[in-house]
């Protein structure tokens, strides 16, 4: 059982993610309409289109760090809003953690998710429970770390991470938003699922669907 993750898998991961976003964009926007400004799906879809085009162009890229850095810059210059820079710094920081080469260990992947999440929190100052993408990502990062340390396979480890992200996403329903646009509604934000937590869950779910072995 190898626990490595290859550049090719990463390309599949993000192409898969782009498909997911396109498929769910109306739902993401509808969630944002309820407690935000009805653009999260539209923004993410724009990012997904540009990302897909970029991946298809990037034929002679052989290093995961270069690849993820390119993804980061593409997302930063195409999503906009709050989500664009946040997903952008996630991949930017993850790219540095990955380093050059076309393969990384599961342990390194878990570390990339960890530092990616940290830089989202450094930029956005959101904590667990603030009803943001952090509420889907943080449980996923923790589950991934535990499963990795416990010696599980990439498939197994990402499956539990995805489950944790989903649970975190659903937990945002009952939260009162403290960060981002939904926080303007105060207590009226309770009862609605956070759009960014939803797109973040999709990111982890796509990883589970593509990075395993």
């Amino acid at each position: 059982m190898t626990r490595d993750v290859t550049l090719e898998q990463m390309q599949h991961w993000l192409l898969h993610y782009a498909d997911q976003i396109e498929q769910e964009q109306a739902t993401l926007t509808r969630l944002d309409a309820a407690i935000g400004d009805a653009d999260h799906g539209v923004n993410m879809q724009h990012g997904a289109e540009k990302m897909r085009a970029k991946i298809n162009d990037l034929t002679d890229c052989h290093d995961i760090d270069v690849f993820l850095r390119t993804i980061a810059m593409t997302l930063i210059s195409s999503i906009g809003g709050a989500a664009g820079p946040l997903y952008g710094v996630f991949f930017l920081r993850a790219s540095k953690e990955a380093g050059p080469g076309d393969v990384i260990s599961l342990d390194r992947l878990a570390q990339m998710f960890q530092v990616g999440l940290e830089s989202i929190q450094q930029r956005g100052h959101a904590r667990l429970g603030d009803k943001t993408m952090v509420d889907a990502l943080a449980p996923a990062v923790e589950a991934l770390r535990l499963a990795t340390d416990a010696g599980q396979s990439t498939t197994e480890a990402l499956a539990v991470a995805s489950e944790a992200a989903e649970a975190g996403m659903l937990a945002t329903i009952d939260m009162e938003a403290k960060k981002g646009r939904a926080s303007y509604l105060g207590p009226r934000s309770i009862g609605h699922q956070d759009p960014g937590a939803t797109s973040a869950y999709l990111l982890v779910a796509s990883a589970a669907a593509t990075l395993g072995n």
Partner: protein
Amino acid sequence: MIAPANHRPADYSPKTALQKKLINRPRDVVTESLEGLALAYPNLLNIAYAPPVVWRKDAPVKGKVALISGSGSGHEPLNTGYVGRGMLDAACPGGLFTSPTPDQYVAAMHAVEGGAGALFITKNYTGGLLNMGMAKEMAEDEGFRVQTVLVNDDVAQNDPENRRAMGATVLVEKIAGAAAEESRPLDHVAAIAQQVADQARSMGLALTGCTSPRIGYPTFELPADEFELGVGIHGERGRQRRMLASADAMTEMMLEPIIQDLGLTEGDNVLALVSGLGATPLQELFIVFRHLHHSLAQRGIPVIRQLVGNYITSLDMAGCTITLLKLTPELTRLWDAPVHTAALHW
């Protein structure tokens, strides 16, 4: 299924429904609208599309601090309508209600920077802060001097950290624009801008939701006898729903917290901005301004400058926002200085 299907208006069908809007494909709204703007102001504006930037025909103005502002589209005339002599050097229009991306600001920088640095007018939204923050880093990496001013005037939010930028944006852009036009250094222009931001407060109300062409149904539905108090300019609901009341009473509900928060007292002179949110007739805005003027006069706070019209909007929302700025003689002088843009001209 990542989420249950929510309620949607009964007659909404994403496939067939044509919207009650003068648009072609929803995804082309922002670009086509910019093309129309370019054709309407051929002597005033340059417009690029990849990435989208609108800038003064006469930029870069040598030795002048460049004023650069950005915001999602759907707030027109903000900010594209404020590009021109005496106000902005460049505006970066984002998608509908979507903060523009960092590369837009960097492209704007290249188009308009005249050797004296740039002031970025930052609206206090997560997206606004993050994208402009990145843009500043990128521009500084390229050797540009950049300062920022943070606009956060919405008193509907109790937590000052969470205050949205509303009408004060227009006032900051006008007054800092006048200061920049006087060839003042970056520090001075930034300080004046921050003074305006600090001395201005806003509050808004919505009589209806608004419909983004990208989704085709309203952001919220309101019963016939209710309104939302404390809304922003992105189609969000407000802090509370209230029963409809007279224009005078509703104006008072917006005015009171602004006066409180600014700590206005007898003898203060103010500038008042009453802006429609997009679907409210001018007639009604003057009725709001009438009460605002009388109510402040009764408290011994004369309105000595004013702007009444559609200056910062939220697509086709009905309702308005009120902004008050505590004036000083210097701010008044800069307000009165000539301005030559699509939406403000004197």
